[in-house]
């Protein structure tokens, strides 16, 4: 298990242990840098702070990002998502598939969106989403809904 020194203290961290902690977290708003865990984007400092218990003021984003990359997580910068351009042009829909692709990781979850492809938060219940918006003083100007897992959930088709 790799050992890292953060704020002068040693920590033994591994990929699965960090991922396990992140599973129970709601991602804070991403400002610039993020890491992807379980299909969700987290600020690197949020993850490292939760895993180690160290205050976010005691280490830098770059340090957190470097550690998480070494553990095998994808790290990127908001607004530099190359994947958006790779969506096939003929895809149906007003956003040529980009919106569907942005929602893909959140099937079955409640999401709050600030724009057509910007998911602010995803959670298991609407109450968690509302609490997150309130806590972070954010507005889901595009709307809030549950990403359907099936056509039946999307439109209320009667089951056979």
């Amino acid at each position, binding site marked *: 298990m790799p050992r890292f020194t953060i704020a002068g203290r040693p920590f033994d961290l591994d990929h699965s242990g960090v991922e396990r902690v992140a599973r129970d977290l709601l991602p804070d708003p991403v400002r610039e840098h993020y890491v992807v865990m379980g299909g969700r984007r987290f600020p690197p400092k949020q993850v490292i702070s939760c895993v180690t218990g160290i205050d976010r003021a005691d280490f830098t984003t770059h340090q957190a990002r470097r550690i998480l990359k070494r553990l095998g997580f994808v790290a990127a910068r908001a607004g530099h998502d190359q994947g958006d351009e790779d969506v096939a042009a003929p895809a149906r829909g007003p956003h040529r598939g980009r919106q*569907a692709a942005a929602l893909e990781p959140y099937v079955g979850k409640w999401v709050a969106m600030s724009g057509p492809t910007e998911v602010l938060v995803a959670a298991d219940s609407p109450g968690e989403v509302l609490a997150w918006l*309130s806590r972070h003083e954010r507005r889901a100007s595009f*709307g809030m809904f549950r990403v359907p897992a099936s056509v039946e959930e999307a439109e209320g088709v009667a089951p056979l």
Partner: protein
Amino acid sequence: MRFDFLELPGEAERLVRPVVPVQVEDLEDAPQLCLIDTGSTANRFGAWIAEATGIDLGAAPESLVMVGGVHTTARHARAELTIAGLRYEAPVSFCDPWPFAFNLLGQEGFLRFFRIELCAAEFWLDVRPEVARD
């Protein structure tokens, strides 16, 4: 006001739905995406919204209805909705359980207040408040 259809993840081909954001009461931070359903006689929302916005359903009349093959208890109340810049008081049936992804905007409580133009070929809909008639 023009809204794009919503793209949803789907296996075979992109699913798109005519939805509009609806502010319920003073829940400004989280407008609810609602599906326009010309076949629904009433607005039908998940009951959690009433709880989240402080609408008291304690004394609300209730009925058992079937929506999309699901039996649900509908409690009938009135709620302030804001759609396309218009705030108005509408009848809403708050349903529990509500296993669907979207709330439904139906005839009473939505369509009679707005003029809708849909263009499925280009994935948009226009929603304009109906001009008041005497």
